[in-house]
């Protein structure tokens, strides 16, 4: 490329008009000169001109080839296409607006999902080299995936292995009340802050002295969130104290904004692990046996596999009670890339894939709509395209121009989609936060930020959907015979019939899938709103009594409270139960056990069907039980259960039990009563089969109280009241809230499904409507002729309906079959087992209802065009042609 070439190209780019004029003049001069020569030879001027043109060939084509020589053709063409595109939008503003709006909705819906995925998959941590972090887990045999490494294990691992450059131990997820506000704390070893290599924005981080075993300092380091929530970003916060469990803790540092530790939700503050006793009084004095999370940076050159091998060897040699346990422990120790509680990318993708398909179906329906619209426009533009083809423009060139037009629309739609996604996200977050019962958490959901990745995704999705909706119409529109077009014989329909039917089929298929999903969710939601937990939720409140030293004072306060009419002991938590095994004769039956006091049945409104409840004398360890109705029926089908005895034993060794669950040793028990079934949570569906006696004096029991008056008001009063006795309050939760919370999650899931289904249906109906209207308009002549020849209006209606009947049918069958297949696959997965108690995947009514809705919607979409066809005045229709 020499200087001259550069100069020519620059001119073509910088002064395109001048270059174009020169080119046009040059070619025109040639033709004129040739004509002049022919005239001079005696030819008539008109003939001469025609001959000159014939000798020259197609002027636009030659001009195109000349432009190609510049090497700037691509930019050039794109610019010209762009100008053409803008002009063609101005010609058909309504159609363009429809395209933009439809694609914007589709893109917006997908962008909402991607924004969520983005925060999981690509969350930006303030932790440098976060990928070097590996977590150690030792799965407890017999439990479902609970790690069992203790602080003692951590010290040993740090001392005796050389896998990590350094490691830290943490206990996270402790919720407590500090000065009456719910706060989340993570306890960490002092090594944590060195490892994450993030400096505090104020004050200092934790030091080894703070975390000295059997001592240390009661200090805390605030997260940015905690600083904001508790101290309102007070710049003089360092040195202030907060009371945790009556112990004053001093604020020594504040971490910078954006630092969350290694989990999604930042705690409000971090405290030394040695201070565990202050946060969990029932673990006071046995801090070294506390179960902790362990993670660290792998030494350079140590791979995940070699770390695993080394830690297995270490685990097998670690002090443990029996050889069997040691072997089990070694086998189940694992080293995994640590990403906190964030799903690993693969898991995230797996988690989001079905959602992306569901949300993507909306985009697909939108694309099918637009493709149909463009097919129709392509026919309308046949003359323009035909002329361009006949004067020598290549088909590829025209396709490129049509695609440029569509891409431009799609990019505008991407901008619209961004707005749609922001609005939808903000709306959804406000809606969800509004539904969340505020008394469980201080819910603060942030609208996920849209960064450059979201923008990039939107552009990519816009390009992809352009290929989806514009390529077929562009190819179809250019598949015409230029000669016939020029002669004015506009081919009415350049065979887009098949393409159009395929698109209708795709739309119906996609909306059938979504609609079946939505109906399944809707029906499940309705069923579950009828759910009976089997106990009173309206006026009961659970009070956790976590602090043993203040238990007596708390109980006295409960007894003295006028609003509390009745109270009972329940253990270990709200709806938790402990699995046990009943041995009757030879066989063993798994049962869920719940520890309650005799008053429980009265407070919770669970009627006794036979026998009696526990007396106050029957407390921990008393060999009496109450069984539930269904358990009694299962164990003694013919008897009345009262007076029967059986052996009850834990289904796992007691040494493996987490410390916050009550001791449970095998003993022979006598049935003294039969109660009505308590179904419990609709998620876990745990049905206690056996009630065992306990009392409020036992450690770790909570009080279940019946409130006179508004339980939410009572709860607030209780908190104010109790906090004076014990600033480190446990949870005080109205059962109404617990029930509501369960419902909230269902409502969210159901609402999303229903919204998607409704949107799909709406788009499909509007798409069908516009296609059918167009077809009727297009076949005006034919319909007019048929009617003029005496065709009854019934036949015309049938004609219009028949146009779509087949693709609708195909789409419906394909969608239903695929939905059924997906349901079958889903049910066979662990996830299916989890949701099957709530979501009834195989629900024939949902399928049937969806099919009926779609058929009805399609008929409705066809009705208006059909009516219009029937009302056609045959004479006018014929004349207009």
């Amino acid at each position: 490329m020499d200087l001259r070439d550069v100069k020519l190209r620059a001119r073509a780019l910088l002064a395109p008009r001048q270059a174009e004029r020169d080119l046009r003049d040059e070619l025109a001069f040639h033709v004129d000169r040739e004509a002049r020569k022919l005239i001079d030879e005696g030819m008539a001027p008109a003939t001469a001109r025609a001959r000159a043109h014939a000798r020259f060939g197609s002027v636009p084509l030659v001009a195109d080839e000349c432009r190609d020589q510049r090497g700037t053709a691509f930019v050039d063409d794109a610019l010209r296409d762009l100008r053409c595109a803008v002009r063609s939008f101005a010609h058909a503003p309504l159609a363009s607006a429809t395209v933009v709006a439809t694609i914007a909705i589709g893109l917006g819906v997908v962008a909402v999902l991607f924004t969520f995925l983005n925060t999981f998959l690509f969350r930006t941590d303030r932790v440098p080299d976060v990928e070097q972090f590996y977590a150690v887990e030792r799965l407890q045999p017999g439990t479902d995936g609970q790690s069992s490494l203790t602080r003692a294990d951590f010290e040993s691992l740090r001392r005796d292995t050389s896998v990590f450059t350094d490691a830290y131990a943490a206990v996270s997820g402790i919720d407590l009340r500090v000065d009456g506000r719910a706060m989340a704390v993570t306890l960490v070893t002092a090594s944590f802050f060195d490892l994450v290599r993030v400096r505090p924005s104020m004050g200092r981080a934790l030091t080894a002295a703070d975390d000295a075993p059997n001592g240390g300092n009661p200090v805390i380091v605030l997260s940015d969130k905690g600083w904001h929530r508790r101290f309102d970003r007070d710049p003089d916060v360092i040195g202030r104290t907060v009371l945790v469990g009556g112990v004053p803790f001093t604020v020594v540092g504040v971490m910078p904004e954006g630092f969350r530790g290694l989990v999604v939700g930042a705690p409000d503050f971090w405290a030394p692990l040695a201070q565990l006793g202050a946060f969990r009084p029932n673990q006071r004095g046995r801090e070294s046996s506390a179960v902790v999370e362990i993670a660290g940076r792998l030494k350079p050159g140590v791979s995940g596999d070699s770390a695993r091998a080394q830690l297995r060897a270490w685990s097998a040699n670690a002090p443990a009670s029996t050889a069997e346990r040691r072997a089990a422990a070694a086998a189940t120790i694992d080293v995994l890339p640590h990403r906190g509680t964030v799903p690993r990318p693969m898991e995230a993708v797996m988690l989001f894939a079905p959602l992306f398909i569901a949300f993507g179906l909306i985009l697909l329906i939108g694309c099918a709509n637009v493709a149909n619209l463009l097919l129709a426009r392509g026919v309308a533009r046949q003359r323009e395209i035909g002329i361009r083809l006949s004067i020598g423009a290549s088909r590829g060139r025209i396709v490129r121009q049509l695609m440029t037009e569509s891409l431009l629309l799609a990019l505008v739609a991407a901008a619209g989609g961004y707005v749609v996604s922001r609005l939808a996200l903000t709306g959804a977050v406000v809606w969800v936060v509004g539904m969340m019962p505020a008394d469980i958490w201080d819910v603060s959901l942030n609208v996920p930020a849209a960064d450059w990745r979201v923008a990039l995704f939107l552009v990519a999705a816009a390009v992809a959907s352009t290929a989806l909706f514009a390529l077929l119409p562009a190819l179809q529109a250019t598949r015409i015979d230029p000669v016939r077009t020029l002669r004015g014989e506009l081919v009415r329909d350049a065979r887009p019939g098949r393409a159009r039917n395929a698109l209708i089929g795709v739309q119906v298929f996609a909306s059938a899938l979504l609609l079946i999903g939505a109906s399944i969710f809707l029906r499940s939601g309705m069923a579950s709103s009828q759910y009976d937990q089997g106990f009173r939720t309206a006026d009961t409140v659970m009070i956790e009594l976590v602090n043993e030293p203040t238990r007596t004072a708390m109980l006295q306060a409960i007894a003295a409270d006028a609003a509390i009419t009745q109270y009972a002991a329940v253990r270990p938590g709200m709806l938790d139960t402990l699995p046990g095994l009943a041995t009757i004769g030879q066989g063993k039956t798994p049962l869920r056990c719940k520890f309650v006091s005799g008053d429980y049945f009265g407070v919770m409104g669970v009627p006794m069907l036979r026998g009696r409840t526990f007396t106050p004398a029957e407390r921990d360890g008393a060999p009496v039980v109450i069984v539930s109705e269904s358990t009694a029926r299962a164990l003694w089908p013919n008897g009345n259960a009262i007076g029967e005895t059986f052996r009850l034993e834990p289904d796992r060794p007691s040494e493996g039990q987490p410390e916050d669950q009550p001791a449970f040793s095998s003993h022979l028990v006598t049935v003294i009563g039969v109660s009505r079934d308590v179904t419990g949570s609709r998620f876990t569906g745990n049905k206690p089969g056996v009630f065992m006696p306990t009392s409020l004096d036992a450690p770790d029991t909570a009080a279940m109280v019946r409130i006179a008056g508004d339980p939410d008001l009572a709860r607030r009063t209780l908190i104010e009241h109790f906090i004076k006795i014990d600033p480190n309050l446990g949870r005080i939760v109205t059962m109404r809230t617990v029930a509501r919370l369960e419902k909230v999650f269902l409502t969210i899931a159901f609402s999303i499904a229903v919204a998607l289904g409704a949107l799909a249906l709406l788009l499909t109906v509007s798409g069908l409507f516009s296609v059918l209207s167009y077809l009727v308009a297009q076949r005006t002549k034919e319909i007019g002729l048929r009617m003029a020849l005496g065709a009854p209006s019934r036949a015309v209606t049938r004609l219009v309906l028949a146009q779509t009947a087949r693709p609708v049918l195909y789409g419906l069958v394909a969608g239903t079959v695929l939905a059924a297949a997906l349901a079958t696959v889903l049910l066979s997965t662990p996830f299916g087992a989890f949701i099957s108690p709530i979501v009834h995947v195989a629900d024939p009514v949902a399928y049937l209802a969806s099919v009926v809705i779609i058929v009805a919607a399609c008929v409705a979409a066809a009705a208006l065009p059909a009516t219009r066809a029937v009302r056609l005045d045959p004479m006018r229709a014929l004349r207009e042609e």
Partner: protein
Amino acid sequence: MAAAPDLLPGTLDMLILRTLQKDTLHGWMISERIQQISGDVLQITQGSLYPALHRLEHRGWIEAEWAVSELGRRAKFYRLTASGRRQLAVETRAWARMAAAIGRVMKLA
């Protein structure tokens, strides 16, 4: 729409360069000249001349200038550059070699 089939592929550039060896001509005169000298044997679709002219211009073998034509109208005149002259020599030699080779084959084969 390339050159008519009776024009050997790749020879159009050479013919243009040769035509411009002595004179400064505009496009129409180039096509006229090629047609006349070849005794109407070489029929080129006249339009196909222009992409070639523009290509040669971009390669720097010819340069163009707007001037008043024999009819008193503005026209674009092309002239051979120094490097165009060298290119013509190269192509002429290659052509001669090729023609000779083909001639030998036709005689002896």
